[in-house]
């Protein structure tokens, strides 16, 4: 088993443990701990005193503030120092301030739980831990030293006792290495528990994660628009021109002649290709969504659906791009599912914004029994909604009706 920290080191074979650097590192760690603890006591007392004296003046607040924030400094030092007895590096639990400068930094730190945990650690360290460090280090250094120099200063006991004792110093050192390393390991574990990032701190990471996810969604959307535009300016224009050229050629040919029949067939192919391309482009990114917003785009999507669709869209103004795109594709996908699987004779889409969330309902009078486990339509739809922090609820009992309810936060 690889040795990762001081506690692991205790399980090594004694010969290897005693010749390793772990006991010495533990000793250094504890000595440092004691020194930092005492320094903290002095600094805290001074800062508090300064705060109390100066609190008549507003500047005094700074003294209290510095006391609170002393934990941040101690925490940072501890995390760095811990590498002496723990190979696993301890990540910084703090998040980066939103803006540069002292004020944003202060606001950020004071709002974080990690800051207060560090303050707690600093207090425990100053009140309890550093004293215990001092006792352990003191005992570990004092006992062997006393024994080793016994023959020189101990006049009361005979040399018959002191010399053999002095010769046993290595054995005492070997024994002392164990409690020193054990305490160092335990203390580091305690420090780790208090100073490591917690899931609450990781809110910051989650926010960052969903931001990066949102960026990814945006990037996809930008890419889709680019593809739409490329297809529109390129292939679509050329196909229209081709179809037109064929139409002009047809004018020159006698109706019913073999050449005219061939040209007509070619033109029909061009027309079909254009129609397919148009559907493809609509699937990539509907122009009307960018130009006119969700209500117009959903209206047009309903117009394209094979099943008649009732619309009740209460959407004033535009929603954020990502929300509109997600909602639009949800409606398109849901209406496609209605047409493909439900055997419905009619469908209805209602949409409205309530409490900063877009509520979207797609229902049909079909046979129900829609199952997210089967087919990728529903799960793909849920993925799309999840990417903008929305939720999807599906009710589809066998025999119908099916109701798909989608909510997406839209921050308005």
């Amino acid at each position, binding site marked *: 088993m690889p040795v990762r920290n001081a506690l692991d080191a205790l399980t090594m074979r004694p010969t290897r443990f005693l010749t390793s650097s772990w006991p010495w590192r533990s000793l250094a760690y504890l000595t440092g701990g004691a020194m930092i603890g005492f320094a903290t006591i002095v600094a805290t007392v001074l800062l508090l005193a300064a705060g109390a004296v100066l609190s008549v003046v507003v500047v005094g607040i700074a003294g209290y503030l510095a006391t609170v924030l002393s934990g941040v400094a101690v925490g940072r030092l501890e995390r760095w120092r811990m590498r002496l007895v723990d190979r696993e590096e301890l990540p910084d639990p703090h998040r980066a301030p939103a803006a540069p400068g002292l004020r944003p930094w202060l606001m950020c730190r004071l709002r974080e739980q990690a800051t207060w945990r560090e303050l707690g650690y600093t207090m425990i360290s100053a009140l309890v831990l550093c004293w215990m460090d001092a006792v352990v280090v003191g005992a570990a250094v004092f006992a062997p030293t006393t024994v080793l120099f016994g023959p020189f200063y101990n006049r009361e006991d005979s040399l018959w006792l002191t010399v053999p004792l002095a010769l046993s110093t290595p054995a005492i050192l070997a024994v002392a290495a164990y409690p020193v390393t054990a305490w160092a390991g335990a203390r580091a574990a305690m420090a780790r528990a208090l100073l490591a990032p917690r899931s609450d701190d990781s809110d910051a990471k989650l926010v960052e994660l969903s931001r990066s996810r949102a960026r990814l969604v945006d990037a996809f959307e930008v890419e889709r628009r680019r593809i739409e535009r490329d297809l529109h300016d390129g292939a679509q224009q050329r196909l*229209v021109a081709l179809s037109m050229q064929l139409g*002009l050629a047809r004018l020159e040919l006698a109706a019913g002649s073999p050449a005219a029949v061939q040209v007509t067939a070619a033109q029909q192919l061009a027309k079909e290709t254009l129609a397919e391309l148009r559907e493809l482009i609509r699937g990539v990114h509907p122009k009307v969504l960018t130009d006119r917003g969700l209500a117009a785009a959903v209206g047009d999507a309903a117009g394209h659906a094979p099943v008649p669709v009732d619309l009740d869209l209460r959407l004033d103004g535009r929603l954020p791009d990502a929300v509109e795109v997600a909602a639009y594709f949800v409606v398109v996908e849901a209406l496609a599912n209605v047409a493909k699987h439900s055997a419905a004779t009619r469908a209805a889409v209602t949409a409205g914004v309530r409490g900063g969330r877009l509520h979207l309902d797609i229902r049909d009078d079909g046979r129900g029994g829609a199952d997210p486990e089967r087919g990728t339509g529903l799960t793909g739809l849920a993925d799309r909604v999840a990417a903008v922090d929305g939720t999807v609820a599906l009710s589809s009992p066998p025999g119908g009706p099916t109701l798909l309810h989608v909510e997406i936060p839209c921050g308005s």
Partner: protein
Amino acid sequence: MRVVIAEDGVIVREGIAGMLRHFGHEVVAAVADAPALLAAVAEHRPDVVVTDVRMPPGFSDEGLQAAIALRAADPDLPVLVLSQYVEQTYAAELLDSGHTAGVGYLLKDRIGEVAEFVDALVRVAAGRTVVDPEVVRQLLGRRRDPLGRLTPREREVLALMAEGRSNTAIARTLVVSEAAVAKHIGSLLAKLDLPPDVDDHRRVRAVLAFLRG
């Protein structure tokens, strides 16, 4: 017929111009963006304008906005708008922008049917309304109760009416007599509570207004 064309794709622009000349019309200007379109119309006072929806600089709906502005400035100017995507939203905005002059909204693909396309342009120039069958299909696809009372034949006739076809053209398309078409029209207008209007132009407006709800 004096025509101004606005279309940013050079092959399509020159193609439309060539095709119109082939049918004996005069292309007084062929431009590539909306500001140039407005300038060309002011300069040449054409009989009809053909414009693409999406053009530089924004590649959004500049052509449509220019068409609406032209109709607002000159209610007698007929405009035919071509679009790669036929969406009800755009059609509605165009149709609502004026009520006197001819107006048309067609899928760009229709250019390929050269004779039909030129015919549609002539009808627009003559003050008629021309709506792409795809838009009509979308409008008919919306569930509206009175439509359920129409016979399949009446629905066909209604769709062709909404596209802006005359009785004669409807009769030719469905291969029936004009008298039969007139009978279907009378019947479906009654079922939809629309006034029996002889004027093709007002009738198509009424039908479109009904379909759009």
